[in-house]
């Protein structure tokens, strides 16, 4: 642990370094220079007057939002003696378990052998589907942990055998206190039977006020109770600190021109993924073109490489032929370091309902990916990482529905086998879109993905009666096949706050 005083200085230094030289910095400088012409700026108290001017003109707020965004995204600085890989992932055996890199190298080999101009899509097996990934997670073991052969208190009853710390319901109740029974929620208190004067009108009014104030932190607090549909696009952009400046639009156009000029082999993976998933979905097939636009640009965007400094994964590196090992000839392949897997396009599809302008849609998706979605397909010990989410789901189910858990285990239907695909996709494609967006409101509001595990457990609790009667994995899957009629917020509220334990 870092000494708290030097920890604060380190954080400040890191944030200053990141913001220095950014477009916000130059805009602030320009504004300060322009303000010199104003009559209220006096030479004797120059510094104070300029600071006052920046405060009243809203520029201080923009700076606050940028600082808040940096604090949210980057983890607190590590101990000075810790090597950089320790910040990505503190546990050594998890660092070693990053299996997808090996598979990525195999894939590079395979592609080189194929050499077809017009790729036949049937030859491209998706790099991995959630099922393969689950197999990898199931086999994660800590070599220092006593996993005896005999069943004992040391063996977890579920599929995940890694002893990570997960929260229990009292801790979750405290963390998600804004979802409590006595607090208004969109998704519950805006239904047709409830008169809007009770909650909805006031909530919309507060939301409009937050938008005029342009305060990121306030917006993040606000969306914990849900976002009104009309304000959602702007509020999410405010929380993610996306302002769609001209230089951002220009950056997007550059990426688009790269797409037109050069092909990448990951493009074939993207085409296949979109055709198999989003195009077959009743809600999202209309957005097929948007999805191509966003994903093809995403794979060429090298700014995504920055998130690898706090992600446990490492982007696959390749060298120009003949220059093996020489760093100047190294490239990351694909340029953004992320190989799309089966279902990747479903991360983008719900956002198409909110944003119609491609460059803004692209930036929102990229920011959501580097803040949240990357944790769902990389192996790490982070509390929002997929391993912790799986363990949280299994622990919640065991603790609060022990009979159901035991029954499902006995019939060979481990609950995680069914819920894993929901969590990996953040429920996209499984819930109705309006419910999904309410769920993603809370992900943004709490800056954590734990709510996905809680919802998965709540769904099992909801269908517990039917599940107790099934006798096989296939039947259990059939009971839980269709989630499109579920209402997310009542389920979460009941599971967290109204279940008698």
């Amino acid at each position: 642990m870092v000494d708290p005083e030097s920890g604060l200085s380190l954080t400040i230094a890191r944030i200053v370094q990141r913001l220095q030289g950014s477009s916000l910095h130059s805009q602030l400088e320009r504004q300060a220079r322009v303000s010199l012409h104003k009559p209220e700026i006096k030479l004797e108290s120059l510094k104070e007057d300029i600071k006052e001017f920046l405060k009243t003109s809203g520029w201080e707020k923009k700076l606050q939002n940028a600082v808040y965004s940096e604090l949210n995204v980057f983890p607190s600085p590590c101990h000075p003696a810790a090597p950089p890989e320790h910040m990505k992932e503190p546990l050594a055996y998890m660092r070693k378990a990053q299996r997808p890199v090996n598979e990525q190298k195999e894939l590079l080999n395979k592609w080189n052998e194929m050499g077809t101009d017009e790729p036949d899509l049937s030859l491209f097996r998706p790099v991995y589907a959630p099922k393969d990934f689950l197999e990898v997670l199931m086999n994660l073991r800590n070599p220092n942990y006593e996993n005896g052969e005999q069943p004992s208190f040391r063996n977890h009853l579920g599929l995940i055998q890694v002893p990570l710390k997960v929260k229990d319901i009292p801790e979750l109740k405290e963390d998600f206190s804004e979802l409590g029974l006595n607090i208004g929620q969109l998704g519950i208190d805006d239904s047709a039977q409830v008169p809007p004067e009770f909650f909805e009108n006031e909530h919309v009014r507060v939301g409009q006020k937050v938008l005029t104030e342009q305060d990121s932190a306030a917006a993040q607090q606000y969306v914990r109770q849900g976002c009104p549909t009309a304000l959602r696009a702007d509020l999410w952009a405010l929380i993610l600190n996306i302002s769609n400046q001209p230089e951002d639009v220009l950056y997007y156009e550059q990426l688009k021109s790269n797409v037109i000029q050069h092909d990448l082999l990951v493009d074939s993976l993207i085409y296949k993924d979109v055709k198999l998933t989003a195009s077959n979905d009743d809600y999202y097939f209309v957005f097929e073109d948007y999805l191509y636009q966003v994903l093809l640009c995403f794979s060429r965007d090298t700014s995504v490489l920055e998130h690898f400094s706090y992600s446990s994964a490492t982007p696959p590196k390749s060298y120009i032929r003949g220059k093996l090992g020489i760093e100047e000839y190294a490239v990351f392949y694909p340029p953004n370091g992320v190989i799309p897997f089966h279902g990747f396009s479903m991360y983008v599809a719900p956002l198409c309902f909110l944003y119609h302008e491609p460059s803004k849609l692209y930036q929102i998706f990229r920011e959501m990916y580097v803040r949240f979605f990357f944790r769902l397909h990389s192996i790490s010990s982070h509390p929002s990482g997929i391993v912790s989410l799986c363990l949280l789901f299994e622990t919640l189910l065991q603790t609060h529905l022990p009979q159901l858990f035991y029954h499902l285990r006995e019939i060979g239907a481990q609950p995680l086998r069914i819920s894993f695909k929901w969590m990996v996709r953040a429920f996209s494609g499984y819930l109705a879109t309006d419910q999904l967006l309410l769920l993603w409101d809370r992900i943004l509001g709490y800056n954590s993905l734990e709510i996905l595990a809680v919802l998965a457990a709540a769904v099992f609790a909801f269908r517990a009666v039917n599940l107790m009667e099934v006798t096989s994995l296939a039947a259990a899957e059939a009971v839980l096949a269709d989630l499109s009629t579920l209402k997310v917020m009542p389920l979460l509220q009941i599971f967290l706050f109204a279940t008698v334990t």
Partner: protein
Amino acid sequence: MSGVAGPGAPSGTARAPLPCAARAATALQLGGGADVARPGVAVIDLRFPRGGAADLQEIVFRNFYTAFLSVRVQRAGAEGSRKWVTCLRDYCLMPSPHTEQGSQDYFSLFRHQMLCDVDQVTAVRFILRQPSPVWVHFTIEELQIYPLNQKSPEKDFPSWLSQLTPLEQPANLHGELPDPEKVSTEVQQMWVLTEVIRARQAAARIGRFDVDGCYDINLLSYM
């Protein structure tokens, strides 16, 4: 496991760890049993070479599944006698000993956290406790001890530092002003860091990258 002047001294400061010889962690044994029990307590003893004494500033180590740490130091007392004194009692490294939290993290122990004076120390004893039976081994690694007062900034204070606008006083100061020594060290640290930043390049991207033909798969080799 030796603690001889290990690698990884933080860059930018001129300090080096003290050379010392540490014996490996030995578990506490209850006498008389044929079975080797796993007692959950281990001890690491550390002595300075040639019986020297040192003033301790900071102890840095990497945890490996130790839950609680106690530290005792042997000080040269008056009239040549040596006494063992506890300077840290049951410091928690893993808040939840059955789970991974804090299990492989780096830790620093500073002299101001110690219960007693740590000057003129001749030996240090680390008492490691891990009450959870699920872990096979536990110890602490990469142990380094830094002596007192090795760094001093040589440059002057820049003038703008003395014109720092005062922050609003936080409400819970209990009517006392913060210790001026502490504030000045804090400000010194921040100044050192700002100097470092100014010298270093900004981290913000220029914002342009050309994906040219170097991504053609035929040009790339695979390893």
